């Protein structure tokens, strides 16, 4: 009789130890350390979007050709028009150089502007399409 009682006690002890142990194992088995996910998201750089400068609007000027023959007449006309009888002169060669210098400045201006447009088009997409949007 006492032998049966001892056996029951052993089983009881075994349950007391085994059940919590199994539960612990079960729970710890279900839980897992999550992998840390590091992700990279590319954030596009803000566009510069500077306003395009307003195109030039130039004043018209008048050229007067003065020769040894018409000098008196030219100065007389200036006085009649109420202008100071003074002229800032260029020789024909210097006039030619001035015209060419202006053409070079104009070309450079055009190239620089087009270059800016091309850069903007390349880095910020099609300008025409963007305008439409």
């Amino acid at each position, binding site marked *: 009789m006492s032998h049966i009682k001892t056996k029951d006690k052993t089983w009881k002890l075994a349950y007391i130890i085994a059940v919590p142990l199994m539960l612990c194992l079960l729970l710890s088995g279900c839980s897992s350390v999550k992998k840390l996910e590091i992700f990279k998201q590319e954030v596009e750089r803000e566009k510069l979007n500077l306003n395009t400068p*307003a195109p030039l*609007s130039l004043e018209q000027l008048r*050229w007067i050709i003065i020769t040894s023959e018409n000098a008196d007449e030219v100065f007389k006309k200036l006085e009649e028009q109420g202008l100071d009888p003074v002229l800032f002169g260029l020789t024909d060669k210097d006039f030619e150089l001035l015209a060419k210098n202006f053409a070079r400045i*104009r*070309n450079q201006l055009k190239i620089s502007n087009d270059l800016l447009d091309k850069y903007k088009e390349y880095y910020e997409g099609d300008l025409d399409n963007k305008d439409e949007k």
Partner: protein
Amino acid sequence: MGIRLFLMGIIISAVIGAGAYVMKLQRDNAVLKANAIKMESAITEQKELITQQKEDFKEILAANQKMNELVSVLKKDLDDLDKRFNKGKRDFGKLAIERTQAMERIINNGSVNASRCIEIASGAELTEKEKNATKKSEINPECPSIANPNYVPYQN
């Protein structure tokens, strides 16, 4: 009894070992599958990147070509200006003495045209008249390349 226990131990160990091996194979398989998916997506990304790079190169080439074309037409405008002053044995100063009024008119017209060229180069919009100019008499002779896009130069 001892032998039986020993054999049972071996069998149990074998079963557990086999189970562990199968589980290891399953884990390896899962890793390989994940690797294959990653590889496929990497290949797709690489293909997209290569396509994008090809398009970029095309765009760069086109932009370069356009800039070179612009530089050459602007240079032609400059050469034409030089010709206007020095064509043949033309002496600009002598002409100004002989035909003062006419030269004054020509120079003032040229000055108006040159100013307009600078306005266009600085970004001013072309007028309809400038856009539609196709004849030599309609163009801005100072800078037809930028002022009159529809004008095709011809020799007369």
